[in-house]
């Protein structure tokens, strides 16, 4: 029998260093990948006194807006965790939801990070969806942007480089078109044209009838933002840190405005001015006619959550959890409340109130004028 060998101090130290190295790699790696692990940040919609949102547990949640009572919480689906050896993935099998639920007549529809679209009946809401697209497997890539509804059709983009149009009634595919790269952008529709951005740095105008490309406009960065159409102008932002205004019919550039970081959130247009939140911590107020900056509000924390307009108050949320009320008539802004939770999800407007979905998976109701808040549990 061999004697138990003593380990020399040098080897001990080397062993400790290696172990430390592995731990240091694993832990910051996990924290680094935590930023890369999809957790979801769905906004939502308020319809007939009911708030619909997607929870970080992968559930479609409906809440009574009056008393904050949870009506139903439906898991979209469960999936196998994609963990491997020493994976940082949590044990949860929830599907991340970035797509804000939307209303299509009697349906409430939501897209999942698993690449599926789920449609539930609102009048007789129950655990089973009325339909799922596709019936089997998934569309081939994650759905990050929200779905929009127009004239009986649902439109959305996916990370497998495609834009889809579905029949809202039964979820059958009307058409799909392949673009050169991922599509995270939420589409916007005006008349018979669908506007959408792509990772290939191009902005596309598609025919809603068949998905054919009407025109395209190239920028210097990937496009993930949601476009806004106002009159004959379409506004969107690119990863080149610019906000663009294009002629909606021809795709010609009207103007562009550049900032210090990405315009991630969807801007709001009011009375000849575009209120554009930026990840540099400012909200820029730009003249829609010529692209000149009128003023800006420095909120000192990135604004990735799309703001909402309630009466004459633009409500915006910073990533560090402060809710601001900006008087759009130009008298300034004030902080309404500090929720002290990270906010990435688009804000939800409803009946003089703002609903804020935080990274702790809590829904906060904030009064747009007074800042009075109420916590709504959606778990």
């Amino acid at each position: 029998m061999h004697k138990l060998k003593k380990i020399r101090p040098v080897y001990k130290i080397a062993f400790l260093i290696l172990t430390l190295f592995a731990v240091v790699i694993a832990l910051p790696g996990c924290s680094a990948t935590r930023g890369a692990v999809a957790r979801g940040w769905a906004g939502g919609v308020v319809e007939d006194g009911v708030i619909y949102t997607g929870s970080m547990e992968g559930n479609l949640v409906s809440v009574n807006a009056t008393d904050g009572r949870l009506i139903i919480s439906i898991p979209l689906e469960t999936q196998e965790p994609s963990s491997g050896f020493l994976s940082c993935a949590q044990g949860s099998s929830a599907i991340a939801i970035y797509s804000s639920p939307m209303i299509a007549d009697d349906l409430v529809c939501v897209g999942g990070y698993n690449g599926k679209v789920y449609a539930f009946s609102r009048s007789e809401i129950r655990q089973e969806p009325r339909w799922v697209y596709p019936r089997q497997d998934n569309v081939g890539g994650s759905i990050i942007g929200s779905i929009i509804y127009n004239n009986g059709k649902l439109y959305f983009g996916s990370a497998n480089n495609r834009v889809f149009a579905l029949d809202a009634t039964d979820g059958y595919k009307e058409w799909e078109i392949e673009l050169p790269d991922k599509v995270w952008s939420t589409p916007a529709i005006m008349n018979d044209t669908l506007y959408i951005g792509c990772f290939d740095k191009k902005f596309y105008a598609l025919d809603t009838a068949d998905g054919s490309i009407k025109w395209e406009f190239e920028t210097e960065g990937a496009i993930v933002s949601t476009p806004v159409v106002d009159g004959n102008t379409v506004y969107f932002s690119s990863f080149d840190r610019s906000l663009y205004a294009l002629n909606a019919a021809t795709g010609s550039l009207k103007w562009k405005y550049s900032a210090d970081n990405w315009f991630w959130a969807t801007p709001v247009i009011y009375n000849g001015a575009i209120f554009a939140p930026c990840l540099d911590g400012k909200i820029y107020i730009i003249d829609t006619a010529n692209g000149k900056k009128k003023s800006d509000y420095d909120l000192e924390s990135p604004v990735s959550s799309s703001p909402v307009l309630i009466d004459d108050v633009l409500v915006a949320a910073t990533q560090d959890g402060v809710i601001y009320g900006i008087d759009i008539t130009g008298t300034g802004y004030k902080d309404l409340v500090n929720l002290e939770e990270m906010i990435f999800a688009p804000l939800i407007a409803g009946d003089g109130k703002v609903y804020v979905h935080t990274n702790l998976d809590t829904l906060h109701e904030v009064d747009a004028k007074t800042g009075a808040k109420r916590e709504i549990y959606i778990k």
Partner: protein
Amino acid sequence: MEWIGSIWDLIILNPVINILIMLSDYLVGSFGLAIMVLTVVVNLLMYPLTQRQLKATKAMQAMQAEIAEVRKKYAKDKQKAAQEQMRLMKESGVSPAGCLLPMLVQMPVWIALYQSVIRLLATAPEGFMDLSQRLYTSWPVFSQIPLNSHFLWLNLANPDMFMAILVGVSMWVQQKMTTNPGADPQQAAQGQMMLWMMPLMFGFLCLSLPSGLAVYWVTSTIIRIIMQYFSTGWGGLTLPFRGGGTSGKGPDTKKNQGRVPKQKRTLSADDTSADIVIESSPAQEERIEDGESGSESEDSGGSYSTSYQSIRRKAGGGRSRRNKRR
């Protein structure tokens, strides 16, 4: 503790992230190439430290036999043994810190590279949010995001089995080069542990981490193998095309590990008709095996120091002895 993270991000992590993006832009948008180039540059900058570490490690290995003798000699007086060991190290100008300090200094750089790669390969929206706050507004890096994650056959954001194997194999080779083939049994066992632990650990890590990291690890390890070769030779690595020579340590080096002292021992010398029979203490064996260039010593037929006088040649006896062993 949060301020430590902030300083780390400000001084180390964010610069590395921005440099990687810029490199990627210059290298035809290939993030894989950017990882490799930055790894090479960082390794070259670290070369003096690496060199120091390699030399110190080699010196420590060279002393192991003497240390073993001291231990044996003062087996019953541990304090004395420790004192003697310290004296030996002092006389030779060797310090364990010489091996470990450079490693400690280099670790933050490796960790920063690792964290940068994993952050830049973010695929979920949260990763983009994180990145947006790390990019330099005065550099043209914003429009480069997202980086092209395809490199050769790899999707750098996903794990890859072949790269995991490559990481394990390259690390094994590098580790093997650092092992001391003529070590005493205790040291040999420890060497074996280190030899397998690192490659297996990192190989398994690669099975669940983005293959971009594996590209970094493989590049880094290959550079270190090259540096190590020019600094200390092949060390404990047996290469078949080298006629079984491991810096002149013979093909039966492994068998020789853990030998009982004072035994006769046959070294391989295929190009000679004579065996070299060494009657030596473990310390002497150690020195011969760890000689500055063992193979040269064999070829020259004895350029060892005067303390190895017990080496003698037995003409004609070698072949039969070798056959017997087989």
